[in-house]
């Protein structure tokens, strides 16, 4: 599953931050999950639980969903991404590489593919809480 590779990245980065911050025990890791990538929350949580190192044994992983907001560079229109308007193949392609959204999504107002993914693209490590 693709989510495992992302989970591995979250754990590796969280470990780096924990070491830098001299955290002996990590209590909570908050991950922001953008809707554009359509990450399966349950799979990501399971992968995180399976990949966590000993210093993360009591860590709670908190996933926050973030709506994907797109802004047209041609006409300035802003809209929220919705998977419903896409074919299954297009939605799957965007799941793997969110930037291919530019191949499948157009501005609903002017039809331009030149839009900015303002927020809600993929996964971000939002916060780490632990004990020193």
């Amino acid at each position, binding site marked *: 599953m693709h989510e495992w590779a992302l989970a*591995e990245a979250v754990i590796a*980065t969280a470990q780096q931050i924990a070491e830098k911050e001299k955290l002996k025990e990590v209590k909570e890791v908050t991950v922001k999950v953008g809707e554009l990538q359509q990450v399966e929350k349950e799979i990501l949580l399971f992968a995180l639980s399976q990949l966590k190192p000993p210093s993360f044994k009591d860590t709670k992983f908190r996933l926050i969903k973030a709506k994907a907001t797109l802004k047209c560079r041609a006409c300035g229109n802003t809209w929220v991404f919705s998977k419903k308007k896409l074919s299954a193949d297009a939605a799957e392609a965007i799941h*793997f*590489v969110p*930037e291919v959204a530019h191949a499948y999504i157009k501005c609903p107002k002017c039809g331009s593919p030149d839009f900015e993914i303002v927020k809600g693209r993929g996964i*971000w490590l939002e916060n780490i809480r632990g004990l020193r």
Partner: protein
Amino acid sequence: MVDPRTTVIPDRLRSINRIIAVSSGKGGVGKSMVATTLALSLVHEGCKVGLFDLDFTSPSTHLILGAENAQPKEDKGIIPPEIKGLVYMSLIYYSRDQSAPLRGADVSNALIELLSVTQWGKLDYLIIDMPPGIGDVVLDLLRLVKRIEFLIVTTPSLLAFETVKKQAMLLRDLNVPVIGILENMKMNKSESIQSETEKLGLRHLGEIKFDPRVEDAIGDERELLGTLIGKKIQELVAAKVL
């Protein structure tokens, strides 16, 4: 907020012995053809090879290779399919027959995504087909892939070499290894590119005459290796220059 993806990139590339970016300051000089025939030639020599098309907005190695209908598998990341004996990855699996107009930030994001989720496995070589110029992909690869080496392709045109020279100077100033400069599509006798290359302190890897048969060889690996590009690349591989 931290983007976690870059942390795992060194791990994903750990089992790859050499990473060679086939690059040029200018488009249309035959980078994709050189990258693909180099990858195929190394396979021919018994090496385990990956080919990674990073020319996101104008990919073409899938056509050169004849990689129709292949798709990566999903298993704790993305596992690229094996095509004509090499492990092949391209954004084309996801953009398909649609145009993918990407700005710089999108190019960077797509590159980081693919580097962080692609499971290459153990490879002797990863050959990268680069987009032209010294833009986002070159800068991101220099930042994220510390062991990268460059093979630069030019034509005899001074217009092409002018941009190649700037790229070579940038790489030299950053202490990035450059294997050498390969002169493609040669039509007249002239040693100017060779002498200019040597002035830069770089190795001129040789010249390849313009070969009209290349177009007909697209999609057929045996035909490709029989073109003048294929023969020259195989010669360089056999001589351990590449």
